[in-house]
């Protein structure tokens, strides 16, 4: 199963952030690479959804749905831009 990209979690990101996020710029906390959320490498078939930096492969976002609530971990991101600012 090949990984997808951040476009595939567009709906999930709207659920979590309340805004369109795929065009938003994020910076990887491991390697400093900056790019649109749409270009993250996304694995969706695990017990949770994992987004990795396309440059270094480290995990930057994890989403796990626990009993109907989506838990988000963004500790791998050094920064995430404002929705609407690409």
């Amino acid at each position, binding site marked *: *199963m090949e*990984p997808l990209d951040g476009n595939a979690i567009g709906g999930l990101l709207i659920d979590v952030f309340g805004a369109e996020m795929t065009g938003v710029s994020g910076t990887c906390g491991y390697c400093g690479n900056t790019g649109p959320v749409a270009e993250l490498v996304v*694995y969706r*078939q*695990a*017990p*949770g959804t*994992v987004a*990795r930096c396309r440059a270094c*492969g480290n*995990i930057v976002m*994890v989403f*796990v749905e*626990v*009993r109907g609530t989506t*838990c988000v*971990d963004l500790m791998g991101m050094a920064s995430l831009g404002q929705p609407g600012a690409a």
Partner: protein
Amino acid sequence: MSPISRGFHRRRAPEGEAGRLPPGQYLTEGFPVLSAGPTPHTPLANWTFSITRSGASKGSWSWQEFQALPAEDVTADIHCVTRWSKFDTGWRGVSVDTLLDRVEHDGRYVMAFCDGGYTTNLPLDDVTGGKAWVAFDYDGQALAPEHGGPARLLVPHLYFWKSAKWVRGLDLRDTDQPGFWETYGYHMYGDPWREQRYAGD
């Protein structure tokens, strides 16, 4: 309230035998590949399996040494937390008892560690006494990389996220610390018969 999608159903699967399917699970005929990252491809020449104690090495086997250990055929039902189950899966591997018997060890818990960085925690009791293997064959063939090859942990009595793919060793510990999915809210133990999917279940 979602409308029922007329005529929609999950992929058809054979009827499960009553009592053999844990609560909330359904039987699958395939073998879904679930992953949180790219498939590692460690060359066998570089592969080792280690038992460590809080990080310090207690014993280690190269692939050749590992293949020389007594191995067993195992048939087991497996249950994924994403709700699919598969009956009578066939594996071949080295029992974790066989590995632990060869090293001085103590501790009450283990953390399995893997290529790609995945980890998962288990009580020592749950990987001993004939309950766990380091499996290198599936269904009569070498375990495919997307299914965890060259070797994965096999602990069928717990949810399959505990059967860590691409396993490279077990770290013995005194306390139970959360591994990768456990850190994100999955259950520390993961008994499918008590439906322990998430922390607090």
